């Protein structure tokens, strides 16, 4: 089974701050990581490989420092990494086209795995977009995946409905956070990852003339100011103080 995992490098949103003066989010200097749910996609790929054998390739469109992140996925169990550089200006059309071209260049694949959404942008756009470009079926929001030799079945969380979908290969699957518990690589695996290949592919080598169709013209920070009155000591006293405060706020009636 040939499996491709699309993984994105993101900033750790829980470490992000908004500049109190400019009201802009501060993006510089925030720690980078693999988008949370892409690790679930990786774990799913490993489970399928453990069952059926094959090869796992990780593809990331991102800056050169994303190589460090790809190494984490190689340590988890991927066989090979591909880092595709992106043009200076990009949007979902550009990123998805590059991923689809990279996947076509890899050639043989049965399953493409993505996260249900990236933790920074949270669109869930890339998976279905890439599936369309590859002209293959898509199974989104998979909470559990059962891969067999010639077909895959997934239970999907569609909000007010739970849907069980089956597909032949090739197929693109996006997984949810609940699909599995991503493994932590051992020290041996981390050391071993250093010997696994990471290929650099330029955007131009895959396709030319890609321009964004959507421009981000502004980024406005949202800061949240709260009163932070915390009662801790005597419980009865805390409760009565809280009720008094809520009464004063006018929310108890």
């Amino acid at each position, binding site marked *: 089974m040939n499996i491709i995992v699309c993984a994105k490098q993101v900033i750790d949103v829980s470490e992000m701050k908004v500049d109190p003066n400019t009201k802009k989010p501060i993006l510089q200097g925030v720690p980078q990581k693999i988008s949370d749910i892409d690790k679930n996609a990786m774990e799913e790929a490993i489970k399928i490989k453990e069952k059926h054998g094959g090869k796992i390739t990780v593809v990331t469109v991102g800056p050169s420092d994303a190589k460090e992140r790809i190494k984490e996925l190689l340590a988890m169990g991927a066989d090979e990494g591909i880092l595709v550089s992106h043009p200076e200006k990009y949007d979902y059309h550009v990123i998805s086209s590059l991923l689809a071209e990279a996947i076509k260049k890899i050639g043989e694949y049965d399953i493409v795995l993505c996260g249900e959404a990236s933790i920074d942008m949270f669109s869930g756009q890339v998976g279905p977009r890439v599936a369309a470009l590859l002209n293959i079926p898509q199974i989104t929001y998979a909470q559990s995946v059962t891969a067999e030799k010639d077909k895959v079945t997934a239970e999907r969380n569609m909000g007010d409905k739970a849907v069980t979908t089956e597909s032949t290969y090739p197929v693109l699957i996006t997984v949810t956070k609940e699909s599995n518990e991503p493994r932590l690589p051992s020290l041996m695996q981390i050391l071993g990852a250093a010997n696994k290949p990471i290929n650099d592919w330029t955007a131009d080598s895959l396709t030319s003339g890609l321009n964004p169709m*959507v421009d981000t013209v502004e980024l406005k920070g949202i800061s949240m100011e709260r009163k932070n009155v915390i009662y801790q000591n005597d419980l009865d006293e805390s409760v009565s103080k809280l009720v008094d405060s809520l009464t004063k706020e006018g929310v*108890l009636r």
Partner: protein
Amino acid sequence: MVIVYSDDKKLTFELLSKGSELAKGLGKKLTAVIIGKADDNLAKEYISFGADNVFIAETSIDSFKAEEYTDILGNIVKETSAETILIGSNKNGKELASRLAGKINAGCVIDSTNVYLKDKKLTAERVVYSGNAIAVEQFNSKPCIVTVPSKVFDPLKKDGGRKGEIVKKKIEVEKSASKILKVQDMKTGDVNVEDAEIIVSCGRGFKNKDDIKLVDELAKVLKGKTVGCSRPIAADLKWLSEDHWIGLSGHKVKPKLYIAAGISGQIQHIAGMRDSGIIVAINKDSEALIFKSADYGIVGDLYEVLPKLTNAVKEKMG
């Protein structure tokens, strides 16, 4: 042409309201799309809520599959030369919009919280970085696809006298290689956290499903009646249905009062309730992140705090 589509009727009404404003601004007509059976009554309703035309794509496909619906909608986009496409942002709508964008090579913005024309260009705002920022996205090419969640726009007032044209067309598309084996309803009833004025939420701090009655009871005396929860309670443990789930991937709420018990306050939860009036946190860990996002907090064991709080509120409110 501006077209709107959602499999959720109420959401379509809301899209029609924004759609008619955009259509006016662009000097275009507004078409509502129905996929499935020819439902004339529904079509008339869409006209009374602002559609100039209704396009009914009749198909024998009986359940939603993104691949097939994308092909159908793609046909309609071509046929109507639609340049602006508004789609309802439920899970079906998001994967449909995204796949359509890939198929017809269009820009796409998911989960827009505002849509307008600026310098004649379609512009959409969306929340990014888990609620830390709003990105203003502007389309520089056509067609443009935007998805909008429910309750972002108010529907227009119904006008039964409006006239419009209903077009019906049989559209058959290639069958997808995927197959739906089972569909199960997960909704439990009439919970509507988005409209609630008071919400009491529970998280992993609860040890058993039965213990959720502690939030139920507090919610009842607060006359809020509405119970919310963090993602693990709905998605992992399935103690509550997804209509209670609040956060980045769940429902966005803005009650006057939001009480979070046994919730750690990860940014993805905060993203769903940060617009609440007053936020109260109950957590046994004084270092819990939730206290940073709270107006008031009690450090303590929820199993002790909640019954005491319920009693105190009961006394206060008489």
